[in-house]
Every structure is written in C-alpha cells, then in structure tokens.
C-alpha cells in the first residue's frame, strides 16, 4: 500500500456537486479516495494521477437493494466505492473527452435526486426542530418540566435557543443551495414562489423562537395591597417590585414565601447600602420575621427571575 493522507472538508448536505469536483481534482493530483468518515474526513491513497469522474447518488432504495443497484452502475462502467450517510460514491476513469460524465441524463432525474436528499436528510432535521428543539425551548425557558427554572434549565434554555438559531441559519443555507441547483433546470415560476414560501416559513420559525423567549421573560403577576402589607401572586415575575412603608421601632415585618419555581430575591432596608434583610429562593427563606429597631421609611424590594409563587408581607 502506498502513501495515504486524510483531509478534512466540510460539505453541507446539498453540496454533493462540489464534493464530486473535489474528489476528481484529488484523483488528478494522484490521490484516490479510499473512504470517508464522520464528520468529513476524506481518506486518500497515493496513485497514478488520472482523470477520474466521481459521482454521488442518494438512493435509499438502492442501498437496500444493493447488489442490483451496484450492478446497474457497474454495467454502465461505474465503480462503486461505498456508502456514507446515505450517499453512494461512484467513480469512473475517463479521458478528457468524456470527462464529467453524469449518472443522471435528464433534469427530471436530477430533481428526483434532490428530492430524495431533501426527504432523507432535511426532513428529519425539520422534524427534530419542530418536535424537539421548539418544545424543549418552551419548556426550559419557562421553567416547566420539574426543573422549576433552576440554573441548569436556564443554561439549557439558552443553549437550545442558540441551537435553534443555528438550525434556522442552516436551513436558510440549504434552501439557498437547493435553489441554486433547482433554478438550473426547473425553469417555471413555481420555484421562486416555493423558495419564497420556504423563507417565510423560516422567518415564522424564528419568530416562534423569539416569541417563546419574550413570553418566558414577560412578567405575569398581581400585587394586592392588604391592610398591613401586600400579597404578591406571581405566575412569572421578571421585574422589581418595590414597596415603601414608614415603620417605627417595635414593628415587625412578617414574610411568608411559597415559591413554585424561578428565582426570587428579597431585600429590606432603609437604603440599598443599609439592608436589614436579604434573602433569595436558593436558601429557601420560606417564612421569617424582621424586627425594626430604627424608625424611618423602609423599602421592601422583590426581584424576580421567572419567579413563580406567592409572597405575603405583613407588618405588625
């Protein structure tokens, strides 16, 4: 066995034409393809530089009925190499005159190949996006599903958001690449309409994600003043609530917190530098009382981050 080498090349799903070109160029330089491994390592073996046409087909049915599929290509002079993530690799030595021989001889079958790639590779990604990423984003952004909006869910939510955005960008790139192919042979106006619809769909998906984030960060709560304090009933508190009371020595502030998720911070004091109490839901302050020793105007400040639950403050 001669010298070998491995190159890393990243081709997106619809870029099979570029990949074919690359492999032919490598062979012309004296490197013949031996295998491809995930995610994009191309393994070559040194050989005589030759004009060899490489072609990729995507045909699940062919892979399932491999012997007759490969036989058909072999009959037509194509050497079958291997399959890699649904693509079958073929090559054929050719002189300059018949370089760039195709494995498809009409536009209909070229379009069919594109459709098979779309069905086999892109549709699963779309399903994952709508059935997995979007619902998970919604659950974790809102702190549902048992995590109650803890830090793990918080980080997960933003990772999912990032993943979702990557997905949409990739879908956009795929759509552009498919469009480049399709416009070469499908001349009808329909394809423009089709791709405009695809882009509108992508924008809707993006808006859905933004909507989920906005909804999760949007405050939904109710504050009710009582005779001697207030009650905060929060479904999702994402802002600061400040209440001021004039108090004198001997008064006490009773706080009862029944949290149901998210984070809530509470601080009590005459000014932010001089707090007489500070607590948060991490410490599960639950129920407590603070006695006042100096008279003055006291601020009770509640800061929520997707906080859910009930807070009762009573002054006696």
């Amino acid at each position, binding site marked *: 066995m001669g010298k070998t080498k491995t190159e890393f090349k990243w081709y997106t799903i619809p870029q099979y034409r570029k990949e074919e070109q690359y492999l032919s160029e490598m062979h012309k330089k004296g490197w013949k393809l031996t295998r491809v491994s995930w995610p994009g390592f191309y393994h070559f073996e040194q050989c005589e530089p030759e004009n060899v046409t490489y072609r990729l087909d995507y045909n699940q049915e062919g892979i399932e009925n491999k012997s*007759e599929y490969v*036989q*058909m*290509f072999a009959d*037509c002079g194509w050497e079958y190499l291997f399959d890699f993530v649904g693509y079958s690799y073929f090559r054929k030595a050719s002189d300059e005159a018949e370089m760039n021989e195709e*494995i*498809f*001889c*009409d536009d209909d*079958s070229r379009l069919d190949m594109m459709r098979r790639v779309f069905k086999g590779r892109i549709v699963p990604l779309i399903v994952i996006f709508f059935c997995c990423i979007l619902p998970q984003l919604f659950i974790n952004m809102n702190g549902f599903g048992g995590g109650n909006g803890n830090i793990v869910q918080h980080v997960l939510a933003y990772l999912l958001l990032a993943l979702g955005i990557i997905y949409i960008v990739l879908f956009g790139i795929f759509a552009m690449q498919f469009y480049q192919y399709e416009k070469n042979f499908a001349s009808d106006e329909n394809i423009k309409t089709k791709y405009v619809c695809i882009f509108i769909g992508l924008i809707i998906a993006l808006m859905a994600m933004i909507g989920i984030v906005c909804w999760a960060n949007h405050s939904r709560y109710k504050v009710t003043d009582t005779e001697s304090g207030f009650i905060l009933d929060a479904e999702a508190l994402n802002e600061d609530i400040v209440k001021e009371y004039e108090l004198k020595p001997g008064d006490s502030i009773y706080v009862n917190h029944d949290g149901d998720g998210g984070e809530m911070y509470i601080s009590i004091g005459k000014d932010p530098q001089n707090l007489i109490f500070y607590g948060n839901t991490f410490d599960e302050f639950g129920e407590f009382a603070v006695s006042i020793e100096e008279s003055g105007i006291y601020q009770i400040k509640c800061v929520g981050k997707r906080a859910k639950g009930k807070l009762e403050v009573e002054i006696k």
Partner: protein
Amino acid sequence: MDAHIKKVYVPMTETGFYILLCLKEPNHGYGIVQKVKELTNGDIVLAPGTMYGSLSKMEKDGLISFLREEEKRKIYVITDLGNEVLRIEMNRIERLYQNMREML
C-alpha cells in the same frame, strides 16, 4: 388513469418514453441502455442513476412490473397501465410529427 400518473407521465421525458418502449419486451436496466443506444445510433446513452430511479418509480406507479432476477439484474415488463400511458404519448408525438410535416 389517476391524476398523479397523468401529471408525472404525460407528457413524458425522452428517458421515460424509451424505457416504456423497450419494456414491450422483458428486459433489465442495462439491456434498455444498450437497446436505446442502438435505436438512437449512440446519441442517447441513458445514465445509471436515471435508469435506476426511473425503473423503481415506474414500478411503484404500476407502469411496469418486476418479472424475475437474473444475475443481480431485475427484469421488468410493461403493464396495461404502462401501455395506456405509452399510447397517449405515442398519439401526442404522432400529432406533433404530423403538424410538423404539414407546416414545413
């Protein structure tokens, strides 16, 4: 004939037409490639990707049916539906030819 068949096969691609025409006699993919090459003096060389895709599509749509396998090659023959599609296509081409003759 249902709408799907009409939409996909009327009018037909040159490839599709030659495949159906050749399958009047039982044959396999490569046999069709050779026959078409012969019929067209080497002008039309059907490519394997197209051939494989067309045969499996036509089989699914019931235009041709699988007979038997010989040395890893599937042998097909045209069905009644395939004949009907072929007849429609032949009428269309005939009219095309007649009109061409009359006008020129």
